[in-house]
C-alpha cells in the first residue's frame, strides 16, 4: 500500500464526509421547501435569499445549544448513540461509487473509497448497524416513550433488513457479484440492460424497504409523531440530536444512490452524461422521500409488521425462487 493511495483515500473520505454533511443540511432545506410547496406554503423565507441560509442558522443553533445529559440516563451510552447513527451512515458510503471514474490533471480518480468485492453486503450491513443508534439512544434515555420508540425502531429495522436482503438477492444472483461497480457495469449497455426490467418486483420491494430502513414517512412511526415527541430522540438536544438528523439524511442520500446503482443502471457507460444521469436518478429518489412525506399517512406498527412478514417477505422469497429457476433453465 503506497503513500499516494493512502493520501488519495484520505482525501476521498474527507470529501465524502464534507459533501454529505453539507448535503444533509441542504437536504433539510429541500425537505422544508418541497413540503411547503406541496402544502401551499412558502417554507423558510427569512434567512438569506429564499431562506437559503436557514441551514446555517440551524447549524449555529444546534452547535451552540447546551449539551444536556438528563438525570437517570445511562450517560455513556446516551452520548455514544447518536455517533453510531451518523458514523454508520457515513461508513456505508465507503463502498458506493458516486460518480464514474474521471481523470483530473492526468490522474485517474475512482470516486469510490474502497471497491471491495462485498460492496452491497457491506453497505446493507453497515446501514443495519445504524439500528443501534436509535435502539441504544432510546433505551438509555430513561424515558418510556423513547423506550417504546426504540423497541419499535428495532422491530422495524430488523424486519425490513429481511426484505432488503431478499429483494437484493435476486439482482445479486443475476450479476454474480456484490461489488456495486460490477452492478453498474452489468447494466452499462444502455437503458434496456437495466436490472429493473428483469427484476421489477425486487425493485419495488427494495424501494419499499428503503423507506423503512431510513424511517421515512409511510414508516415514520418510530418517531412517535402522534405522541407529539420525537421518538428515541426525545431526550436529545443540541448537536447530539443533530447527529441523529445528519445520520437520517445521509442515509436517505446513500440509499438514493444505491437504488439506481442496483436497479436503474447507475452511471451507465461512465460518460459525463452517465454521471449526471446517476445524480438525476439520485435526486428523483430523494425527492420521492419528501414527496411521500407530503402525500401519505403513516401506517400502524402492526400494519407495518404485517406488511413486512406476511406480504413483502413471501413475495421476495418467491421472487428469488423464480429468478433461480429462470437462471437455471
Amino acid at each position: 500500500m503506497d503513500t499516494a493511495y493512502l493520501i488519495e483515500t484520505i482525501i476521498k473520505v474527507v470529501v465524502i464526509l464534507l459533501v454529505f454533511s453539507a448535503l444533509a443540511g441542504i437536504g433539510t432545506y429541500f425537505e422544508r421547501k418541497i413540503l411547503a410547496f406541496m402544502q401551499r406554503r412558502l417554507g423558510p423565507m427569512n434567512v438569506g435569499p429564499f431562506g437559503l441560509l436557514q441551514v446555517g442558522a440551524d447549524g449555529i443553533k444546534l452547535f451552540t445549544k447546551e449539551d444536556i445529559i438528563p438525570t437517570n440516563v445511562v450517560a455513556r451510552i446516551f452520548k455514544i448513540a447518536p455517533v453510531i447513527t451518523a458514523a454508520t451512515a457515513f461508513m456505508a458510503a465507503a463502498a458506493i461509487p458516486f460518480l464514474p471514474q474521471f481523470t483530473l490533471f492526468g490522474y485517474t480518480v475512482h470516486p469510490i473509497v474502497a471497491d471491495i468485492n462485498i460492496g452491497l453486503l457491506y453497505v446493507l450491513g453497515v446501514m443495519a448497524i445504524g439500528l443501534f443508534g436509535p435502539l441504544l439512544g432510546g433505551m438509555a434515555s430513561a424515558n418510556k416513550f423513547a423506550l417504546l420508540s426504540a423497541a419499535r425502531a428495532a422491530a422495524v429495522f430488523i424486519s425490513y433488513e429481511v426484505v432488503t436482503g431478499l429483494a437484493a438477492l435476486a439482482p445479486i444472483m443475476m450479476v454474480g457479484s456484490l461489488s456495486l461497480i460490477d452492478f453498474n457495469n452489468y447494466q452499462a449497455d444502455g437503458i434496456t440492460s437495466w436490472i429493473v426490467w428483469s427484476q421489477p418486483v425486487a425493485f419495488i420491494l427494495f424501494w419499499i424497504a428503503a423507506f423503512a430502513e431510513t424511517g421515512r414517512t409511510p414508516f415514520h412511526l418510530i418517531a412517535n409523531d402522534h405522541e407529539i415527541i420525537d421518538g428515541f430522540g426525545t431526550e436529545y438536544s443540541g448537536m447530539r440530536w443533530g447527529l441523529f438528523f445528519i445520520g437520517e439524511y445521509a442515509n436517505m442520500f446513500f440509499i438514493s444512490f444505491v437504488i439506481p446503482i442496483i436497479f436503474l443502471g447507475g452511471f451507465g457507460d461512465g460518460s459525463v452524461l452517465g454521471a449526471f444521469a446517476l445524480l438525476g436518478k439520485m435526486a428523483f429518489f430523494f425527492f420521492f422521500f419528501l414527496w411521500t412525506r407530503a402525500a401519505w399517512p403513516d401506517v400502524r406498527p402492526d400494519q407495518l409488521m404485517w406488511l413486512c412478514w406476511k406480504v413483502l417477505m413471501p413475495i421476495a422469497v418467491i421472487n428469488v425462487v423464480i429468478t433461480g429457476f429462470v437462471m437455471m433453465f
Partner: protein
Amino acid sequence: MKMEEFNNRNVADNGYFMVDIEDYPTDGWGKFKRVVKRTFRGELFVGLWVVLREMIRFDIHTIQYPQEKMPIGPRYRAVHEMKRLWESDAERCIGCGLCEKICISDCIRMDTKIDEHSRKEVSEYTINLGRCIFCGYCAEVCPELAITHGGEYENGSEQREHFIMYEDMLTPLDKMKAGTQMEFEGFGAITPHEDERVQKTPLSY
C-alpha cells in the same frame, strides 16, 4: 324559517345519505381479496398526484406576516379608542359612566368634574387592559359612540398598562383635521340605512 322547520331534528330527510361502504370481510379469502383490490387500485398515486399538482400550480397561500397583513374586519375588537366629534373635534365622551357600569371585568374607571362652562368633563379615564376581556360591551353601551374598539393588534411593551394612556386612545387632532378618523362598525355602531328606520317616538300610550 318557521318554527316547525327549526324544531325538525330528523336530519335523515334533509339531504343526508348513507355512504356506500361495503361490509368488512370476515373470512380470510375476503380479506385477501380486499388487500389485493386496495393494492392495485392505485389510491396512493392519487395522493401523490394531488400534492404534486399543488406544487406545480404554486398557488401559495402564505402571508408573510410582518411585511404583509391580512385585512381585519371592522368589527374586530382590539385595544380601545376614544373618538372625537366630527363637527367640533371635541371629545365625544360625555362622562355618563355607562361603560364603567357595564364592564363585566370591572376594568374601566372614570372620574368626572364640572368644568368652567358648567359642563361635565372627564378628568380621568383608565382601562386596565390586564383585566379587559375585549367583550365589546363598553362600545355597545356607549350612547355617543365615543369608546370603540380599534383594529390595532400589534402591541408590544414591557407592561400592559402602557397601552391604556387616555391620550393614546383618543384620536389625535391632526388625524381629526385630516378627516381620517375611522368609525367603528362593530357593536353599537350605527348600521347602514339607519335614517330610514328612525321612527317618531310613539306618544299615544
